[in-house]
């Protein structure tokens, strides 16, 4: 009887028949500590060597603020563009059968596989004022390469597969009958897409957004070739960190890194909360 009462008390984990909780959780914690937590706490540790006043000075330095704003701003814009076009690409790949579909499908993954520097160099040469696309845009007064717009384009390039690959499986799983049901109820094609299909895939779109955004914030290789890296204008935060490192200003570099870390974590945490809410909202419970 006493054991029964004890068994009903508070538990660190819910009783389950799946064995190995201790082992797997232990491994997970050790692994995360080794790979992620220790290096990240190193960042915090090194930046603390500065002392609060110095840290604040670096954080509020005009160049740092501009770099952070460009990094997060461009990433946000790129992720939003990717959400729209990535969803469209996923839709086309799932819903239509056309010659070359598999090639397009494979091409979507290329930004994953390509060294980002290669992507940066080719984007820069294409969008440069004398490049293929750049020379078409130049007469219109649009400069892409070596401006913040160039940064956005590079970030769109590297972020696209994240949205496509998260939305695609959900679209594939989507029941045709749901659309037919909407049609029998009198909904036009447009209404079906807006009110039935898009809300249905919203959680996956949000995940894709978060991934593309996170990837874009940390991107370095492809951006520095196309950005022009003009301080205060098209200099991204990761580049500023590298510049500080090259000056052997390790504390300054880690200070910027710590700020990026905090902002990124806050944003991803917020996105996760929205996601959890939307999953409940869109009926993915139980």
């Amino acid at each position: 009887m006493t054991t029964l009462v004890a068994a009903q008390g508070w538990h660190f984990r819910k009783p389950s028949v799946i064995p190995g909780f201790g082992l797997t959780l232990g491994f997970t914690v050790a692994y995360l500590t080794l790979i992620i937590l220790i290096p990240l706490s190193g960042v915090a540790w090194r930046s603390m060597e500065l002392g609060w006043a110095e840290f604040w000075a670096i954080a509020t330095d005009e160049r740092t603020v501009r770099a952070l704003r460009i990094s997060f701003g461009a990433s946000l814009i790129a992720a939003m563009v990717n959400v729209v076009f990535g969803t469209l690409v996923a839709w086309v790949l799932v819903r239509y059968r056309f010659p070359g579909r598999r090639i397009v499908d494979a091409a979507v993954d290329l930004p994953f596989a390509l060294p980002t520097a290669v992507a940066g160099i080719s984007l820069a040469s294409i969008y440069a004022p004398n490049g293929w696309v750049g020379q078409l845009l130049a007469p219109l007064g649009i400069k892409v390469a070596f401006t913040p717009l160039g940064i956005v384009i590079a970030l769109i390039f590297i972020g696209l597969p994240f949205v496509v690959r998260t939305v695609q499986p959900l679209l594939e799983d989507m029941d045709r009958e749901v659309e037919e049901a909407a049609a029998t109820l009198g909904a036009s094609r447009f209404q079906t897409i807006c009110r039935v299909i898009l809300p249905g895939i919203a959680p996956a779109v949000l995940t894709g957004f978060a991934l593309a955004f996170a990837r874009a914030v940390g991107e370095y290789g492809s951006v520095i070739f196309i950005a022009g890296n003009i301080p205060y204008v098209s200099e991204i935060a990761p580049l500023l960190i590298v510049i500080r490192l090259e000056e052997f200003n390790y504390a300054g570099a880690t200070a910027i890194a710590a700020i990026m870390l905090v902002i990124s974590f806050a944003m991803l945490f917020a996105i996760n909360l929205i996601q959890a809410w939307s999953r409940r909202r869109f009926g993915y419970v139980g």
Partner: protein
Amino acid sequence: MDVSIRSVSKEFDGYPALHDVSLDIRSGELIALLGPSGSGKTTLLRLIAGLERPTAGAIFFGDEDASHRTVQERNVGFVFQHYALFRHMTVAENIGFGLKVRPAANRPSKREIRRRASELLDLVQLSGLEDRYPSQLSGGQRQRVALARALAIEPRVLLLDEPFGALDAQVRRELRRWLREIHDRTGHTTVFVTHDQEEALELADRVVVMSRGRIEQVGSADDVYDRPNSPFVFGFIGDSSVLPVRVENGKLWLQDRFIGIEVRDVPDGPASLYFRPHDVELLDGGGGCIAGTVTASRRVAGTRRVELEVGGARERVEIELPVDHPEAANSRISFRPRRWKLFPASGGTAALSATDDGSAGKADEAELMLAASL
């Protein structure tokens, strides 16, 4: 709303799914499309809904040719086997969807939509679940919501595609009765597809038996069970046993044995004798009966099902006996079908049937059926 299907054919990529099907559905009728998988019953239902376009033929709603109307314009309520509810909407939003997507001119107010949803939830006996999501409901509840959603648009025809197919047996029986009640109360012309003959016979005013893209027979439960017009219908509806027999001078022979059944106006030659396993009488043996060796005997619910090997070719037939029947323990049983039906062995549709007890009523019926089928 009368629905009239006129010589409709449907092909999918050259593969024919329906051949020249015609069917008249009367207003307010509850009709079952019954058939094995691949018989074209779902295709026919989807054609009525407008989810498919016929390759040939026309579908009329009342006097109006609906063949070229889109799904949206046809205003049909369609219930899918797997519910097809919108998972990101609450129950009330699901039911109100059809009203919400109407053009502004004839869209009810939000409050009115909500009121209608509650009303329909009362009708399907799910009051109080307005704000649940589909994932929080059981299968039976989801299907009720799907029906409420289909009824919300005041459909001209209600179409249900295997509505109870994904549910377990008990819920299915309960929903069946409940669907009949709803139909009687609302009076919608209703067509439902099923492969479950019990469901079709119990629920429908008329049953449409389909096979291989064709309609085999249309009739009441009594018609298709007692007066099947083809070997397929006889075999598909209810239990049946078949014996290959020979007609000679109006007498039926099983190999070299006269089995005590006489027919009129049937040409000599091979034929198939169909009868219901439970509709047989046991005899003492001797002439004029079918005799067989018992090979298996199984208790099935209230009866005992006995498998017999009959004649030199060891044809197997099944008969059903009352559990306490003394003969059931014997190793050899002689019997004769009380009611039977004879179809030409080549698979034609001409048929005749009879009872052998000579009672006037039944004999008349046999005559009539003979006349009707020839």
